[in-house]
C-alpha cells in the first residue's frame, strides 16, 4: 500500500514536471512568434508606406525654350517662372479665366523650375527649340493620384485646403487626355535632399553616411585591434593594466551623445575642423566604436588556445611573430564580426551627429571628406518633421533603406566569419 502510494505520488509529480516542461516550451514559442509578428508588422507597414515614394506622377508639357527669356550665356538666370506659366496656359482652352490659369500654374511641383534649369544649363543647344517634357506634378496631386489624399472643399469638416476639387478636376481632365503618367522613379535614390518631395532623395545622405563610416573604420579598427593585442599579449599583468582595461570597458557603455559632446569640444572647438563634415562625423563615431572593438577583440584573442602561442614561441618565434602569424589570424573571424557589428551600430547612430552638425539641409551631394554632409539617420529625422504629405512615404522609404543597409552589413559579418573559419579549417 505504501509502495502503491509512493508510485501514484511519483507519477503525479512526474506529470506535473512534464506539464511544466510543455508550458515552458509553449511560452518560448509564443515569445518567438510575438517577436516575428512584430518584425513582420514593422516591415509591412514600412513597405506599404514606402511604395508611393518609388513612383512619380508626371505631366506631359510642351515647353518653348524662348531665347528671349533664357540668356544663352547664363541659362540659369532665365525667367523660368513666366516661361513655365506660359507653357502651362497651353494646356487650357484660350478662353480660360485667370482663376483657371492659376489652377494650371499650381499643377507642376514647384521644383520643376530647378529641373528645367539643370536640363537647359547642361544642353544650351536646346534654347530656341520646343520640347516635350514630362514634369513632376505638385505634391498634393501626386498624393491624389496615389489615392492618399482626397480633394476637400474649404467649407467642409476638415477645412484643409491642400487640394481643392477644382484642382483635382483639372488634373482628371488632363489624365483623360493621356497627359498624366505614373512611372517608377529613381529620384529617391539618385537625388540629394530637396524641399520638394518629388525631387528629394537619399543620395546625399547615403554618401555622407558612407564616408563617415569609412573614416570610422579606418580609425577605430586599427587602433582598437592594436589596443586589444596590447592588453592581451604585451601588457604587464598588474593593477595598472586592470585599471586601463576597466576604463576602456566602461567606455563601451557611455551613451553616444557624450561622444558627440566630446567631438564638439575637441574636433570642432579645439581643432577647428569643418562642422558637419564626414571626417568629424567619422571620428566621433570612431570614438564610440573603439571601445566596442577593443572589448570584442580582447575576447577573441583571449579565446585563442594557449598551445598555439606556446608552440610558436617554442619553435623560436618572437612574441611579435607569434602574435602576427598565429594568434591574430586565429582570432580574426571574431574580431571582424565584432568590428562590423560595432560599425553597424555607428551607421544607425544619430545623437552624436546632431551635435557636430551632420543634420543640416543640403541640396547637393557632399564632394569631399571635409565638406559638410548629412547622415542617413539624420535625414530621416529631418524628413519626419516636414509638413508636406509626400515626405511621409519618403521617410518610410528612407527608414527601409537604412534597415536594408544594416541587414546587408550584418550579413556581411556572418559571411565573413564563415569564410575565415572555413579557411582556417582547410589550412589545418
Amino acid at each position: 500500500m505504501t509502495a502503491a502510494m509512493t508510485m501514484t505520488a511519483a507519477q503525479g509529480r512526474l506529470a506535473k514536471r512534464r506539464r511544466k516542461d510543455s508550458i515552458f516550451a509553449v511560452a518560448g514559442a509564443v515569445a518567438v512568434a510575438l517577436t516575428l509578428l512584430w518584425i513582420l508588422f514593422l516591415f509591412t507597414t514600412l513597405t506599404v508606406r514606402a511604395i508611393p515614394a518609388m513612383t512619380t506622377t508626371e505631366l506631359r508639357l510642351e515647353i518653348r525654350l524662348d531665347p528671349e527669356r533664357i540668356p544663352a550665356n547664363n541659362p540659369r538666370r532665365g525667367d523660368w517662372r513666366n516661361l513655365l506659366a506660359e507653357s502651362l496656359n497651353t494646356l487650357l482652352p484660350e478662353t480660360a479665366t485667370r482663376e483657371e490659369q492659376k489652377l494650371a500654374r499650381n499643377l507642376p511641383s514647384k521644383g520643376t523650375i530647378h529641373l528645367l534649369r539643370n536640363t537647359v544649363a547642361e544642353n544650351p543647344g536646346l534654347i530656341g527649340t520646343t520640347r516635350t517634357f514630362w514634369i513632376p506634378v505638385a505634391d498634393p496631386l501626386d498624393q491624389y493620384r496615389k489615392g492618399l489624399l482626397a480633394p476637400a472643399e474649404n467649407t467642409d469638416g476638415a477645412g484643409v485646403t491642400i487640394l481643392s476639387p477644382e484642382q483635382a478636376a483639372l488634373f482628371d481632365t488632363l489624365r483623360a487626355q493621356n497627359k498624366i503618367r505614373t512611372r517608377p522613379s529613381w529620384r529617391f535614390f539618385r537625388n540629394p535632399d530637396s524641399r520638394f518631395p518629388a525631387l528629394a532623395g537619399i543620395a546625399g545622405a547615403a554618401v555622407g553616411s558612407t564616408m563617415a563610416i569609412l573614416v570610422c573604420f579606418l580609425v577605430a579598427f586599427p587602433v582598437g585591434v592594436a589596443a586589444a593585442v596590447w592588453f592581451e599579449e604585451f601588457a604587464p599583468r598588474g593593477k595598472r593594466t586592470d585599471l586601463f582595461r576597466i576604463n576602456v570597458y566602461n567606455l563601451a557603455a557611455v551613451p553616444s551623445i557624450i561622444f558627440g559632446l566630446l567631438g564638439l569640444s575637441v574636433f570642432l572647438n579645439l581643432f577647428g575642423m569643418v562642422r558637419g563634415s564626414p571626417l568629424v562625423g567619422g571620428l566621433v563615431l570612431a570614438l564610440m566604436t573603439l571601445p566596442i572593438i577593443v572589448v570584442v577583440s580582447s575576447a577573441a584573442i583571449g579565446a585563442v588556445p594557449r598551445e598555439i602561442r606556446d608552440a610558436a614561441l617554442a619553435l623560436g618565434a618572437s612574441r611579435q611573430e607569434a602574435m602576427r602569424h598565429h594568434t591574430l589570424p586565429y582570432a580574426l573571424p571574431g574580431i571582424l564580426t565584432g568590428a562590423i557589428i560595432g560599425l553597424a551600430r555607428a551607421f544607425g547612430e544619430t545623437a552624436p551627429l546632431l551635435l557636430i552638425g551632420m543634420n543640416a539641409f543640403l541640396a547637393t551631394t557632399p564632394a569631399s571628406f571635409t565638406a559638410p554632409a548629412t547622415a542617413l539617420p539624420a535625414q530621416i529625422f529631418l524628413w519626419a518633421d516636414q509638413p508636406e504629405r509626400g515626405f511621409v512615404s519618403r521617410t518610410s522609404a528612407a527608414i527601409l533603406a537604412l534597415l536594408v543597409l544594416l541587414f546587408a552589413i550584418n550579413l556581411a559579418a556572418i559571411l565573413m566569419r564563415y569564410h575565415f573559419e572555413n579557411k582556417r579549417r582547410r589550412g589545418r
Partner: protein
Amino acid sequence: MTGLTAATALAAALLTLTAPAAWSQEPVHIVGSSTVFPFTQAVAEEYASVSGGGAPVVESTGTGGGMKLFCGGVGSATPDIVGASREIKESEIALCEQNQVGSLTEVLIGYDGLSIAQSRSGAALSLTVEQIYLALAAEVPADGDFVENPHERWSDIDPALPDSEITVFGPPPTSGTRDAFVELAMEAGCSAFAEVLALKAARRDVVCARMRGDGHFVEAGENDNLIVQRLVADESALGIFGFSFLQENQDALRGVSIGGVAPSFASVRDRSYPLVRPLFFYIKNSHRGVVDGLEDFVFEYVDEAAIGDDGYLAERGLVPLSEEERGRVREAALEATPLR
C-alpha cells in the same frame, strides 16, 4: 584610455593632413531659428539651382544656439549667417564683440504672426492678452497671492465673455510656436498685473510661462491639421496656430481678435495685431567677399522673387514686408549697413 588618446593623436594627424584649403572654398553656412529654417532652406535650394554651384549648408539650431555658434568668432569654422525669430540680444552682441566678430548686418525678412482661432460656426470672440493669461496660466494672482488657476469657464474671467468651458489646443513645449505664444501673449498678459511685477525675476518667469495642466489647455502635438478637426467638432474650443495656417483655413476657422484687432495680413504687417514677431537674419560682414557665394546668397534672399508679395517665401507662410520696407531692407543688406 590608451585607445582614446591614440585616437585623438591620430585625429590630430588626420587633421593636419586634410586641413581645409582656403576657406573661401567652403559653402555658405547658415544656422539659427527653426522658424526661419524653412525660409532659409527655400532660399538655399533656389540659390543652388540658380548658381549651379555648391549648396549652402542650413542648420536648424534654434535662435539662441545659433547665436552662440555665430558669435563664436570668425573663420571657416563659424557660420556666416544666423537666422533669428527675435532681435539679437545685448548679451549676444557683447559675445560677438568679445570674440572680435566685427560688424553685423541685420536683415528683417518679414513677419510671422500667431493666431488664436475658433470654428466659424461659433460666436465671434474677442480677447485681451490679460484674459488669455488668466485663462491659460497654471497660477494666477488672487487677493495679493497666487493660486492654482480656478477659472473653468470664460465667464469666470469676465462675465461679458461667453459662458462656455475653456478649452484651448496649443503646441507642445518643444515647438517654436509655443515659445512665441508664451512670449507674446502670456508674458504680455501677466505683466499687466501688479502682483506679478512685484515678484522676483526668476519667479515671475515661472508664473508667466507655465501653462495650466488640468485639461483646459491641451497640448495637441505638432500636427495642426488635427487641431483644425477638433475645433470644427467643438465650436467653443480655441486653437493656437502660426498665422499662415489660419490663412489657409479661413473658410473653416476665424481668428480671435486680440485687444480688438483681428489677425489679417494688414494688421500683422503694421503690427497693430499684438501676436506678431519679426523674423531676421544677421550677416557676418567680415565674411563677405571672403566666403564664396555669400554675397549672391544674400542677394537671392532679399530679392523680390523671395521676400516679395508673390515670392516663394510667402508661399511657405511668411508675411511679407511692405514694398517700401523691402526696398530699405534690400539696400541695407546689400550695402552691409552695420548694426546700430
